[in-house]
């Protein structure tokens, strides 16, 4: 029984390591400036996790293999209540390793969240609702029109105020179009329940909380069309609250931004067909 359990624990350990190391399943390739650092921190962490996991399971398997009671053996186990020096060693070692990991991991977090978006960032306002994404573009004047929840309806999804001159050239679309290699600042809002903005290749996720305008920033580094998912349970059709993010070369993006709202919308429709979805 002891040997069988020991071997089983080792096999489970081996199987788990192979599953992680197979290369068949992993993150989608990253498309943001901070993404590679997140991937590196993930690798650093998963190596510590892997070593600890393998060491603990191999030791456990070894102990149950080696120290099983055998029939007829009347000798006793080793009488020991522990070893204070060992306790201190493993406490200090794990404390140093774990807390160092936590500290190292803060760098990329600080870069994203402790400083505001750099000047000249491209801005889009995101307004989520059950179960769709609305992206509010400032238009050629670069200024967002006023919004008011009491104006929201099926033909005015974010409650844009038509009386505000700044709103005339604004566009509201279901697709997020961003320029490549330029910092992007999103202002995230929700009109009903909590949603979450999640684009796996961007390595970015942020909740959209009703009553709050949350400002976030990142820099996309690769053109293409990507899927956007909602990552916070928002109700019945949460699973199909899907959106798309198109990242364009800067010149193409500039040309798009110069278009009036109706042409802007048509052009984005064309881009959706033009760029295959990367996954």
């Amino acid at each position: 029984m002891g040997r069988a359990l020991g071997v089983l624990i080792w096999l489970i350990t081996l199987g788990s390591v192979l599953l992680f190391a197979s290369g068949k399943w992993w993150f989608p390739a990253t498309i943001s400036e901070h993404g590679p650092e997140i991937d590196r921190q993930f690798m650093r962490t998963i190596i510590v996790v892997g070593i600890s996991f393998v060491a603990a399971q191999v030791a456990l398997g070894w102990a149950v293999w080696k120290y099983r009671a055998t029939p007829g053996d009347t000798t006793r186990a080793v009488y020991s209540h522990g070893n204070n020096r060992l306790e201190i060693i493993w406490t200090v070692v794990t404390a140093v390793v774990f807390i160092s990991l936590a500290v190292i991991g803060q760098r990329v977090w600080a870069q994203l969240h402790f400083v505001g978006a750099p000047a000249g960032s491209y801005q889009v306002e995101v307004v989520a609702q059950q179960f769709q994404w609305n992206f509010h573009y400032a238009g050629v004047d670069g200024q967002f029109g006023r919004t008011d929840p009491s104006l929201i309806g099926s033909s005015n999804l974010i409650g844009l105020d038509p009386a505000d001159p700044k709103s005339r050239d604004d566009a509201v679309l279901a697709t997020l179009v961003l320029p490549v290699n330029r910092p992007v600042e999103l202002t995230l809002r929700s009109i009903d329940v909590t949603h979450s903005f999640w684009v796996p290749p961007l390595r970015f996720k942020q909740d959209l909380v009703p009553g709050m305008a949350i400002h976030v920033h990142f820099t996309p580094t690769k053109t293409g069309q990507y899927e956007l998912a909602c990552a916070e349970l928002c109700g019945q059709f949460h699973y199909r609250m899907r959106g798309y993010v198109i990242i364009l070369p800067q010149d193409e993006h500039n040309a798009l931004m110069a278009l009036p709202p109706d042409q802007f919308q048509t052009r984005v429709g064309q881009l959706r067909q033009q760029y295959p979805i990367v996954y």
Partner: protein
Amino acid sequence: MSAHEISGEAHRHEPPKSFIRKYIFSLDHKVIGIQYMLLAMTSVLFGVVMSVLMRMNLSWPGTKWPILGTLFPTGAPEGVMSPEFYLSLVTMHGTMMVFFVLTTAPQGGFGNYFLPIQIGADDMAFPFLNMMSFWVTFVGFLVLVLAIFVEGNQTIGAWFSGLGDWMQGGSGTVGPIGGWTAYPPLSALGKIAGPGQGAGMSLWIISIAIFCVGSLLGALNFITTLLNMRTRGMSLMRMPLTCWAWFTTAVLALLAFPVLLAGGILLFLDRTAGTSFFIPGGEVVTDTLITSHQGGSPILWQHLFWFFGHPEVYIAILPGMGATSHILSTFARKPIFGYRAMVFAMFGIGLLGFFVWGHHMFISGMSPYSAMAFSILTLSIGVPSAIKTFNWIGTLWGAKIRFTVPMLFALGFVSLFVSGGITGLVLGQTSLDLPMHDTYFVLAHFHLVMGVAAIFGMFAAMSFWYPKMFGRMMNETIGKIHFWITFIGVYSIFMPMHIMGIIGMPRRYAQFAENGQSIYHFIDPADPLVKFVTAAAIVTALAQVLFYFNFFWSLFKGKKAGDNPWEATTLEWTTATPPPHDNFAGVVPTVYRGPYEFAVPGAPNDFILQTERDAEVAEVDGGTSGNGSDGHGH
């Protein structure tokens, strides 16, 4: 610490005669303990069936399951599970499992039965309060079951609809759809936010509030009993680690449940009384402008919920740690390695457990600076967890292991606790939470560590104490088959979920394909894993029939058990099997040594009961001498 005197006569009560006072409204902690266990064994059936239904929908979305169509004509029309039906399964699976399984059996069940006996008391400090805490919890369970029927059945739903919009049921689901975390505004807005959010959600809050009260009463009782009712010689540092675990758990419950209770009341007021604790102004839901609420904060609920919710994770797992330590030492035939370190580590986990709730909220919109503090505190909690693991393996080093069923499950606990706990290093980091938050990686992590490991702790405890409770042994062969299938099964279910999370698969999605088309292409690579996990889940769920069969069959047909079938050392093994009404038949036991005196050199047996006097065993170096230090160190 000096020996603690108690008066054995002060609160002795005679065994009751009537059936009702003996088995239903019993004041006997042993009966109440078994009642909690049966409640958990009932609730876990709901939880497991719901998880299998969820797996079926994920693997085969759109498939017709005729029996579901008959039971839930609205929620599963023609037997096809609707997304809202799936989400109500998510909610109720989580609620049943976290509250009525993981929080009842380990503490209210085994703790109730064995804490008084292990410290040499004749009952809990407040037997009436103890009875109340079970029956209050049971009412909470009934209200939760009512939430299933009030939403699932239109006739029952109609009974309550007269109470107002907040009690509109009959949506065809089996409860609310917001998950066990019940984040507002989804949970606060009522029926308008989605099916199941009317009566189902109201009853869910009432059920949890009642549960909080029951848990609070229980926690008070555990703490008082342990501090005041230890028998002669039972110093704190001579208590079995199980008692330390139940004590720490009770302290956590005492501090955590009131916060959830308060949060629940505020949420209920938001729904019914027009308050706005969690609902901001300017909400537009289903094209309706909500004008009756203003100024609330959805994030406030998350803080209140997780201030409870994170300690709750330790409330679920600590009793399993206690049982595992106890059982490992017993069947390793070796003293526990580092008893003091184990006690401090347990308290360390409990204490730190109150300062890490924010790691559930890194991307919630909370301050990124506090996120950083929460992250570093969270990774610190890995240190006491690692100490426990090292000490368990240290206990096995140089052992003479007896591979009984409880020992197999205890060893399984150690393996699963490591596998599940270690990924906390990933999820506790702010930056890594950006890709990992709310993916299947999180599901894998917490199911392994607080779900499956805790359940293994319960299986270990049940097979270990069954002979003491019921006078018969559980069947060893069935127990072993149950262990092998379950151990391989749970790893097959939850290991691949890590990979699904890395791929980016979000949790709480009712389906990943519709009409044969995948909804998100980035999830496509996970498809074979999804199917594999479902198969593993079905096999593992079916294997649990072995446990239920063994439990009931052994009650009547199990081999008769002696007073100390495992050759163990603590007080429950010094009394009759099953124990008499007042536990020690009027004798107040006296304790002379620590709880894990196995393999003492020179002693006649390889185990020494805590009640054996020094004169009865050969005096040995490092042995104990009644001064409260238990030969620890070196």
